[in-house]
């Protein structure tokens, strides 16, 4: 069986075998290879963090040789494109990235210590809902999904967003993750109307409704929420099946409007953690290089071509793991 051999760190010998026998420079996605000269690369040789920075490669063959011979513990490349990547100078643009780490999902069903099949699966669900919003609401294209070893990266190459600054990227994160409580009062002609988010089936209120429903349906009796006491949590769990077919109105009245408000306020702040905002707003971040080995867990970081069918435990396990003696 593979399972008990999984998620153990790779030995230096295993790393070398991986880069010599299994890895192929063609596994590096085109979105990296077509911009290799513009990016900064970073490496972690000892497993103590990526302190070999400012590395540049004039072409893919040099990158190939480097990885072959050095078989690093971890390899990264910048999301930024620079005129002078060796000095991180002459910033041109940066990919827009979203990082969903399975162990940081705010409400996890598995409750495992690190990552497991359940939370990785949950991460993929979240990724897929983010993609829907990125396409449907924000109209963005050129989106790539990468399995990072412990979660997923979304990497966008849509030219219209690549030059945006951190502030705007921060707002995109808020929009996507449903991290802001939508207003519920709208005025026209001097009269104010109350409109709950779930009565508006498009735009941000809809995104918020989707993310909030997802969170509520995944709550466990152990979940800790500010402002939500044990009694409220119990009532929410008892009534939440109403949300499966969007009976928000009834759900709200069962819970009571005051308590409902408290609940969604807590969930909104929890939603903020769906995506690691620090990664998205950092224009010069380095991200794990797809095709490289995540040595800590002995898994391949790789581009996901089909998120419907992707299973990291089938596709991202390097050969040497199967050959380990148990």
């Amino acid at each position, binding site marked *: 069986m593979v399972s008990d051999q999984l998620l153990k760190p790779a030995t230096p010998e295993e790393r070398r075998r991986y880069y010599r026998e299994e890895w192929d420079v063609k596994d590096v996605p085109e979105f990296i290879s077509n911009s290799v000269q513009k990016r900064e690369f970073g490496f972690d040789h000892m497993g103590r963090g990526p302190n070999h920075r400012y590395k540049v490669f004039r072409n893919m063959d040099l990158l190939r040789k480097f990885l072959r011979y050095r078989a690093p513990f971890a390899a990264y490349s910048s999301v930024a494109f620079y005129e002078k990547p060796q000095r991180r100078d002459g*910033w041109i643009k940066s990919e827009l990235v979203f990082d969903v780490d399975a162990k940081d999902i705010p409400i996890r069903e598995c409750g495992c210590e690190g990552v497991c099949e359940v939370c990785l699966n949950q991460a993929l669900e979240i990724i897929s809902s983010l993609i829907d919003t990125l396409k449907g*609401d924000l*109209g963005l294209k050129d989106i790539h999904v990468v399995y990072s070893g412990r979660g997923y990266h979304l990497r966008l190459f849509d030219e*219209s967003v690549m030059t945006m600054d951190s502030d705007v990227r921060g707002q995109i994160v808020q929009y996507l993750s449903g991290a802001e409580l939508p207003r519920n009062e*709208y005025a026209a002609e001097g009269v104010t109307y109350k409109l709950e988010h779930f009565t508006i*089936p*498009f*735009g*941000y209120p809809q995104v918020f409704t989707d993310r909030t429903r997802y969170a509520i349906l995944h709550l466990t009796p152990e979940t800790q929420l500010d402002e939500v006491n044990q009694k409220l949590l119990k009532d929410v769990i008892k009534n939440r099946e109403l949300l499966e077919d969007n009976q928000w109105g009834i759900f709200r009245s069962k819970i009571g409007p005051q308590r409902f408000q408290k609940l969604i306020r807590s969930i909104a702040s929890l939603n903020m953690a769906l995506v690691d905002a620090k990664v998205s707003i950092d224009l010069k971040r380095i991200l794990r290089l797809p095709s490289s080995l995540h040595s800590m867990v002995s898994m391949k970081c790789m581009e996901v071509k089909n998120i419907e069918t992707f299973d990291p435990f089938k596709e991202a396990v390097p050969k040497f793991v199967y050959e380990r003696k148990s």
Partner: protein
Amino acid sequence: MNKYSICMVNVAFINPFSDEARQIVREYGNLNTIYQENGDLIQLVTRSPSQDISDEETIPHNIMDLALKRIEWYVKKKNNPEFDYRKYSYLYNRNITNFDVIAFYLLVQAISVKFGPNSRESRVMVEAQGKLMESRMGELLLSEKREILGTILNTLLPGEVKWTMFADLLSSRKIKLTDLVLDQGNIILDKDYFMENLGYKLEHRDPGKMYDLLIGDKIKELIINRMIMQKTEDYISEVYQKSQRQVEPNPILLELADNVTEILNQPMATYGYRGGATGKVEASPLNQEAFPPCVKIVLEGMKSGGRNDAIILFLTPFISYARLYPDVFRRNTTLRVSDVDPELAAVEKEILPLIYEAAERCTPPLFEDQPQEKVNINAKMGFGMHSEIELKHEGETTWYTPMSCEKVKLHLPSLCKPDKTCKSIGNPLSYYIRRLTDLKYEEATSEEPG
């Protein structure tokens, strides 16, 4: 029709790119008449409500004058705190629309031909157009405003209002992404589009009513305003491109262009930063003695965490405003760095060196491991995300105003070591102004004999 309105507003009064406006241009006869004394124009101007006619100088006599007045209005309004809008009331008078549109096109042509798209003149033209639209909209009745907004929205092509075009509005928080109704990358503003693409999703609710509630006038106005500014900018580039292929530009246009430059060269000398009598603080070399405790701490170099924020978010705005626009919080106008420092001499010789020195004194020195932070310093001064400060990039980001004491206490608590002057201020920049005045006073009194 509303009984109070003198006549219906022509959409060309707000949008010089409308069909109505183009019609006006087509019907206008000989270009030479723009110099001729124009009785109709003078009459309209002098009869505009609350127009000040005491000074002959304020009255445009021909279309050429009117074109220049549009620019002058903007520059004075922006730089002169005692701006008297009654001298320019006619610019808000909808009856001047026909002349106004011609003046607009003359200006754009003159500026494009002479200076091209990346010039100070072009930038002022674009901003003036935006401000003028804003002010004119402000004078309309609500019903008229709605009608105009509706008309303009109707002429937009589907897919034309991409949210990604408004990164600067988002970045400066004038609008929030979550407040926009977005669909396939478009900001939904148009009622028909809303009804067709989203309205059907509404159960038990009147889609028309929902449209009115969800798509507020304010967002529409902001977006349309920005689009007209964008179109003005695009049009300048277009005219410029064409003019490159022509032999001789029209001398009338060249003269107009020179007159625009003349107006732009006046303001700082005549209006801004003059005299202590009115309590204004002029841009002047920095006096480090007057810096507040928090700034002094950063200048000595940050020894622990928070290096980046202290240098970029805190110090850069403080130093640049203290040097160039210390009055920012007392005057209700935004400026760009180059409005005060057109050659960027103070930026290069005084502001950046001070910031770089402070960065150098950090442990570890900031640029040693993060040279890219220079880009962020440039960005906070309004020059976009570029490694060099260049005028052509100015405006891609906004010139950040200095953090308030409250924010400093929240985000960089180790910097705030208040002294007694701190008790009476709310922003390190106000501290600076206060101390400057005190120091001047001390100096003056100590010189007094006896």
